[in-house]
Structures are given as structure tokens and as C-alpha cells.
């Protein structure tokens, strides 16, 4: 768990890069910091592992202020992935992946095992790449190694600054998918910087949308899509096709892709929606009621099953994953 407690950052020369930011990243969540260039995402991220000092406020990791921890210890317990992967050109791939274990003084056998596990996790052949150097790998492969390196000492927290930003759309797409898989296994608490709304919706359990150092909205992806808090958020989100797609699809499409949930009769206040209802309105209904689910009926009022926010979100992910490469070409 990472807690930002009214954090402010003022750079020399009075640049207020982060302005009184307060929110919490729950354990095991991916929280995406989203916003236009220069809004303070990187700064906020780098204050967590104290690559930048905090001007005011406090950042707590599992309840402990990061000021009270030794910088070196703190950083070794946090995985850090940056856009240009930051692999060390002088080290082989194996040396790069096991650099933190080396710092921690692991023995050779343990490092070798870890290297194998991690490379398999990120989908690279351990034996093939062991003796290679970073410049002999493609950008996507380098970025995978970057992720493996950050996971090496099994840190509970990961900071990722536009990790897939420098890749071509198709590779980016693939790495995002792979990373979601990896996260299912490793369940890290992740702060993820992005300026791409599609990526944010796809990767995030939560999104923190920023502008000029301030939080504009902190919510789940669907909440941000459906209930943008202000003009800025709706403009940032609105241009995007995700929400438009949502209004183009019906509950029936969702049923075909991922199926409906079981009807749980004990839940009160459950509203019903028609199977031909579009998903955008369905999502609004879901968010405006107390209950977690709505019951889906066919044209004759027959109950078919239920839909939850989670269903819509999963469908959204699917949609974005399938559509994004196509749309970036257009």
C-alpha cells in the first residue's frame, strides 16, 4: 500500500510540479498516473523512491514514511522501470537481470535460478539471451528484460514510468497483455505512469488523472469514463473511442464474449436492463444504484443473468486490446 499524504513538490526556481496530492494505492493494485506532458507524473513517481525530494507532505509505504527508511534499503525494495529501459550496456542480459540480487549478495546458484524464472516469466529464452548484451536485443526484448530486472529481488512495490512508451503500437500492445498476465502471478503494488488513456484503462485498477500537478480525478477506469468530474477530464477522456465503443456495444455483445453472471436473488435493489441496452447506459445504471449487479432480461422480460461493473470493465479491456492496433493505423 502506498499513501500520498498531501504531497507537494516545488523545484528550484519555483516550479510547482506536484501540488497537494493525496491518494492511496491499495495492495496488489495497478494505479495509473495519467495526464498530459509536464503535469507532474514522473515527479510524483520519483518521490516514492526518493529520486526526488519531497517538498511538503509525506509518502507512506505500508504505513511507514519513506523518509524514515534508509534510501538504499528503500530503493532495493522497490522495482523501477523506465521508458528507455535503462539497461546497463556494459553488462550481459543475465548480469542486468540479476544486478539487484548481486547487490544483495545472493550466491551464484540462487541468482542463476532467479534469472531463469524471471526470463521465463517475461517470455524470453534464458539460455539464448544469457551472454548477450542489451544492444543486441530489440526494443521490445530490452523492455522485457527491464521488467525482469525490476522484479528480480521480488520487491512488493513497482514504479513504472511509461515502460512501454518507446515501443511501436503492436509491440506495446503485446507487452501490455503480457504484463497483465505477469501481474496476475506476482500481484505487486504498482504505480504506473502513462499519458495514453487506452493504456490506462487497460492496465489500471485505478486511474489518477492529473493536470498541472493537481489531481483532477481519482477513480476506477469505468467511473472516469462514465462520470468525468469536470470539463478537463471529459475532454481528456472524451476524445477517446473507448467510451464511444461502449455506447456502440450492447449487453448482448458482452454476453457473447464473456457470458453473464449468475443471478443472486439475495441482493436487494437490483435493477433490470434489456439485453439490447447499450453498455454505456448499463454502466450508468450500475453506478447509480446501491447493488453491485443488474439483472439482464430479454425482450419478453425473461431473466437471463446479471452484469457487474467488473464484467463491463473486462469487456472494455477485451475491446481495447483487440481494437487498438487497428485504430492506431488509421
Amino acid at each position, binding site marked *: 500500500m502506498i499513501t500520498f499524504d498531501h504531497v507537494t513538490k516545488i523545484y528550484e526556481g519555483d516550479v510547482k510540479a506536484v501540488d497537494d496530492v493525496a491518494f492511496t494505492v491499495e495492495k496488489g493494485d495497478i494505479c495509473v498516473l495519467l495526464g498530459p506532458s509536464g503535469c507532474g507524473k514522473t515527479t510524483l513517481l520519483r518521490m516514492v523512491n526518493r529520486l526526488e525530494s519531497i517538498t511538503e507532505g509525506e509518502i507512506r509505504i505500508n504505513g511507514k514514511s519513506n523518509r524514515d527508511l534508509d534510501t538504499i534499503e528503500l*530503493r532495493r525494495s522497490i522495482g*523501477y522501470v*523506465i521508458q528507455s529501459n535503462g539497461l546497463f550496456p556494459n553488462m550481459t542480459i543475465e548480469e542486468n537481470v540479476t544486478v539487484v540480487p548481486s*547487490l544483495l549478495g545472493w550466491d551464484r546458484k540462487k541468482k542463476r535460478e532467479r534469472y531463469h524464472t524471471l526470463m521465463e516469466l517475461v517470455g524470453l529464452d534464458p539460455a539464448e539471451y544469457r551472454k548477450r548484451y542489451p544492444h543486441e536485443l530489440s526494443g521490445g526484448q530490452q523492455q522485457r528484460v527491464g521488467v525482469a530486472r525490476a522484479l528480480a529481488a521480488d520487491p512488493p512495490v513497482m514504479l513504472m514510468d511509461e515502460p512501454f512508451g518507446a515501443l511501436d503500437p503492436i509491440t506495446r500492445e503485446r507487452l501490455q497483455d503480457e504484463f497483465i498476465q505477469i501481474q496476475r502471478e506476482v500481484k505487486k503494488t504498482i504505480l504506473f505512469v502513462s499519458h495514453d488513456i487506452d493504456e490506462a484503462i487497460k492496465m489500471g485498477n485505478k486511474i489518477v488523472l492529473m493536470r498541472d500537478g493537481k489531481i483532477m480525478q481519482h477513480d476506477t477506469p469505468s467511473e472516469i469514463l462514465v462520470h468525468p468530474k469536470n470539463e478537463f477530464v471529459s475532454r481528456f477522456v472524451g476524445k477517446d473511442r473507448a467510451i464511444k465503443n461502449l455506447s456502440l456495444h450492447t449487453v448482448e455483445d458482452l454476453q457473447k464474449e464473456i457470458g453473464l453472471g449468475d443471478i443472486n436473488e439475495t441482493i436487494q435493489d437490483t435493477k433490470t436492463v434489456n439485453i439490447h441496452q447499450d453498455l454505456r447506459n448499463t454502466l450508468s445504471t450500475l453506478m447509480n444504484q446501491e447493488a453491485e449487479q443488474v439483472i439482464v432480461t430479454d425482450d419478453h422480460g425473461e431473466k437471463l443473468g446479471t452484469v457487474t461493473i467488473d464484467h463491463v470493465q473486462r469487456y472494455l479491456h477485451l475491446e481495447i486490446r483487440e481494437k487498438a492496433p487497428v485504430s492506431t493505423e488509421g
Partner: protein
Amino acid sequence: MERKKFVSLMVRYGFYALVIYFFVWSFQKNYFSYLFKETETFVLLTRQHLELVAVSSLLAIAVALPSAVLVTRPRFRQTEWIFTNLANLGQTIPVLAVLALMISILGLGFKTAVFALFIYSVLPIFRNTVAGLNSIDDRLIDAAKGMGMKPHQILFRVELPNAAYSIMAGIRTAIVINVGTAAFAFLIGGGGLGVWIFTGIRLFDNSALLSGAVPVTLLAILADYLLRLLEYVVVPKGTRPSANA
């Protein structure tokens, strides 16, 4: 394509032929007689020459590397340009001027010779080390910090290995120049193969001249070659310039 290769080969063999011709000619003229007549002196002079080069180069490395590391630390970053510019300026000053000035300040002798050679070798090593350290991508340092490396770990595991190519190039340049400059040690009373070269010039004695000049040349070429080999061993494979082409 074939014709180009042929022209190139011809030029290459032309160079070889010139060098071979030179050696045959000078042997015929008995210009290397000193090497055989005064082998002991030759060994002595060569040893002196190597001593001068070795002592001054090691001193230069011992001083230049740490100072280059020091001026590139964040604390001194602001003052770095002063040192770099001074080093650039120093490099512009002719060798013989440095040598001569040292004589007028320190007098004659082996120590003065070593000191003058040292002064002149420090600059290229310092300059190249600073350039090498500065050329490292800030994001690499950032990644190293972010994963919890201590400053000395960043220096030894990331910065120096990645600057190794540039540092080694500086050391090689310095030592090769040093081999030639050490010939002037004779003028300072420091011995070395320069003794025969200058005697040869003064007495129009071609044998003395070549017996001094040719070994110095070969020493310089040999030093260059050996240091290139060392470079190959020391510089990490992933950081050689050809690696990023």
C-alpha cells in the same frame, strides 16, 4: 568492386615495400651498427626510456583518473567546465614548451624529466575520462540509483565500465605520445634513447641517429598495439563503439 580491392592491395603492398626497402637500405649502409657494437648501452638506454615512460604514465593515471572522477561528481559539476577548459588549453601548449619551462623551474635531472612527461600525460587521460563519464546517459545513472545502488557501486559498476573505452583511449594516446616525448629527456639529463638521436643530429652521425630513432618508433608502435590489446580485454563488450553502430 574487384578493381577497388586491387588498387587498395597495391597501395598496401607499396607501403610494405617502402618500409622493407628502408630497412634493407639502412642495414646495407650499416646504420644500425650501434645496436650491435654497443648492445649494452642500447639495453641501458632502452631501460631508461621505458622507466621514464612507465613512471610518468603510472603517475599520470594515478592523478588523472581520480581527479576526473572527482570533478564529475554532482558536488563539483558546476566547476567542471573550468578544469576541462584548462585541460584543453594545456593540450594546445607544445610539448617542448612544457619541457623547457620545467627545466627553467626545476633544473635538470631524471625527476624533472619524469615530472615534465607526467604533466603532459595527465591532460589527455583527464580529458578523456571526463568526456567518457559525461557521455553516460543520465537515465542509466537514474536506473542505477532507482534500484538502490550506492554512489560507489554506481561509479564502479556502471560509470567506469561504460566510460572504459574513452578512458583507455586517453591512456593509450598519452602513453604513445609519452614514448616519443621521452626522447627529449636527454636534454634534461634524463637519459633514454634520445641520447643517440640527439648525438646523431649534432654529430651528423647517421648510425647513432637511426639506432636511436628506429627503436623509439618501434616502441611507440608496439605500445600502441599492446594498449589496443589491453583495451580489448578491459572494455566491456557491450560498450565498444562498433557495438552501437
